[in-house]
Each structure stands twice: as structure tokens, then as C-alpha cells.
């Protein structure tokens, strides 16, 4: 399986359903922080440029808020493409974006456990 097929399989997304309306980017709360924008995810999959997608900063900026998923008129679910690219990265040795050693100085007294488990699931294998 090549990388393009892998992203399509993990995400379950058909990038060819996209009609490029841009609603996903318009509604994304992390848009400003992203190097590859939500409406561009499908193009990277279509052209098979998974290497660039797997090197993007956007995957660490996505908040899993599902705004792009909810508001896509074609049910393309751009967030799932980014999540698949992230999976490909964190499933590799050394691909984790968060290590246990980094955490103690980031924790304050009020920090809910929910935050740590969520960050672990998103950033780490």
C-alpha cells in the first residue's frame, strides 16, 4: 500500500468528493496557525504528496473540534485526513510530539486529567 492509499484507508475519506468551497478553512478556529490549510488537505491526498502532509505543522494545531466535519456540505471530513497523516507520523519510531518528561513543568494545580489524556492520545502513540 502506498502512502496515498494508506491515508485514504486510515481516514476513510474520499478526497474526490470535495468541491473546494473552502467552508472548512473559513470555520477552522486554528486556521491562522496552520501551514497547510484545511481546504488544501484534499489536494495533497489527490496529488499523493503525503510526504508534505506528514511534515506539516497543522497536524499539531488541529483541535479536534469537528467544525470542519460538521460544516462540510459534501461530508468530506477534512479533519480525518489530517488525523490520518498524524497517525502515520506518531506510529513511527520517534514520531511522538509529546514526551512524559515534558509534562511536569506544564501542569498547574487546576489542570484536569482530561487534558493530559487527550493530549497523549493526539500527540503520542
Amino acid at each position: 500500500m502506498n502512502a496515498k492509499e494508506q491515508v485514504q484507508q486510515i481516514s476513510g475519506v474520499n478526497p474526490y468528493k470535495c468541491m473546494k468551497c473552502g467552508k472548512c478553512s473559513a470555520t477552522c478556529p486554528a486556521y491562522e496557525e496552520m501551514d497547510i490549510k484545511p481546504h488544501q488537505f484534499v489536494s495533497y491526498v489527490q496529488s499523493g504528496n503525503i510526504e508534505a502532509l506528514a511534515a506539516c505543522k497543522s497536524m499539531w494545531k488541529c483541535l479536534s473540534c469537528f467544525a470542519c466535519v460538521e460544516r462540510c456540505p459534501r461530508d468530506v471530513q477534512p479533519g480525518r485526513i489530517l488525523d490520518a497523516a498524524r497517525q502515520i507520523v506518531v506510529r513511527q519510531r520517534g514520531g511522538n510530539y509529546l514526551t512524559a518528561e515534558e509534562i511536569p513543568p506544564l501542569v498547574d494545580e487546576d489542570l484536569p486529567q482530561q487534558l493530559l489524556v487527550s493530549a497523549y492520545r493526539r500527540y503520542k502513540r
Partner: protein
Amino acid sequence: MIFSYYPGCTLRNKAKDLDAYARASAEALGFTLQELDNWQCCGGVYPLGTDEIASKLSSVRALAEAKDKGQDLVTLCSACHHVLKRVNDDMTNVEDIRTRANNYMKLAEPYAGETKVLHFLEVLRDVVGFDTLKEKVVNPLTGQKIAAYYGCLLLRPGKIMALDDPENPKLLEDFIRALGAEPVVYPYRNECCGGYISLKEPDMAKNMCNTINESAKGFGAECFITACPLCRYNLNKTEQGLPVYYFTELLAEALGVKEGAL
């Protein structure tokens, strides 16, 4: 009436009040939350990958235990609710996930999504009824202007969560009205607080929570209510932000059971 209950990791630690006020209020309203015997953390975020199985098993175990007891499964934390509800949808509708998860589980009878997952707010709306709730209020919160903060996880994706209209919800506003207070409707009530981004990039979450605060203040709100410990944590980081309460705290107050609940 007895419901199976999944508290989740945070309600056993930093959000004990969200849990305690809910249990006390439930008893006052005539139902009981019976904690599952064996529950494990849901993981906080629903695993989106179609090949993710092991990360869904803690949810499947909780769902299967409720099925064995013949009870609906009630949640309080938005994240737990989101994860359990979506895994249940997978177990109902996605054959590949259902088969592979059951292969791990080795249950007496395969689990296929039989359990009904209800958020505590759905129990108030659909089982108790907001009219009945209103009748049981002994300390109406008259005159308080309250902004409901839904965030993301309770509502989206609307087709699966099926809690309310994901773009124009009214569940929490109706709840606020039942307590005798005045709901404040503002545009950012279902926009993201930043979620887990506040661990590594607190400024990003702060900016988003500032916008939410400004939006609610602009419409005259005096405080927020939420069902999510992470939303509350992030909103509380706003300088000169509105106070943030769990919806169960105001519920317990209105029902006259707040004293002694903790």
C-alpha cells in the same frame, strides 16, 4: 429509576464537584446514578482512524457492562460522552470495528451497540422533563443572566451526537430557563475553547477563550455554565473573564441540595 453511570477520570479528581452536584440533584429529581463496577478512562479524544480498535475497547467495556445490567448509560463530562457515543455508533454501524472489537472482548454475547448512551442533560430534558424540573426548583435563580457554553464535543458531529441542533442548540438555554434564570444567547457558544492545545500552546487557547468571553459579555452575560472540565479550565485562564460554573452546581443550588453535596 436507576441509570448506569460512567463518571470518567476527571470527575474522580479535579472535577469532583461536577459529579457530586449531579448525584445529589438526581436523587432530588427521583433517579439514581449507579456507577459502573469496572470503568476505565475513555481516552478523552475519540480515535478517528478507521483502523483504531484497542483505543476504543475501554468504551466498549463500559457499554457492555451497562447492557448486561439492562440500563441506559449516563455520562456527565462532554469528552466521555463524545467518545462513548461515537464508539457506540461504530459498534452499531461499522461491521469491521464491531467484529474486531468483539474479537478482543470475548464477551458471552457480542456487543453490537445495544446500550443507549445519554448525557445527564438529556435525562433532564427527555426523562425528567424541564417542566417537572421547574416545579421542583426551590431556589429559582431569578434575574441571573447565564451564558450556556456548549463547546464542541457535546454537539458535533450532529448526526452521531444527536443531542440538539449542532448550530443552533437550545438544550442548555431551556435548562437555564427551568432554573428560573435568563439564558444569554451569543454567537461563540458552540465554538472551540482550544481543548488540549492549552498544554503546549496556552496562548492559542487563551486567544480563543478571550473571544468567547467578549462575545458572551457583549450580550450581557454574568457567568458561563458548561458540562466540560477542560472548557472550564481553559475559560478560567481568561484575564477578567466571566466566572464559569458546572451546570450541575447551579442545578443543585436551584433544587436546594447544594449544601452537603460535596
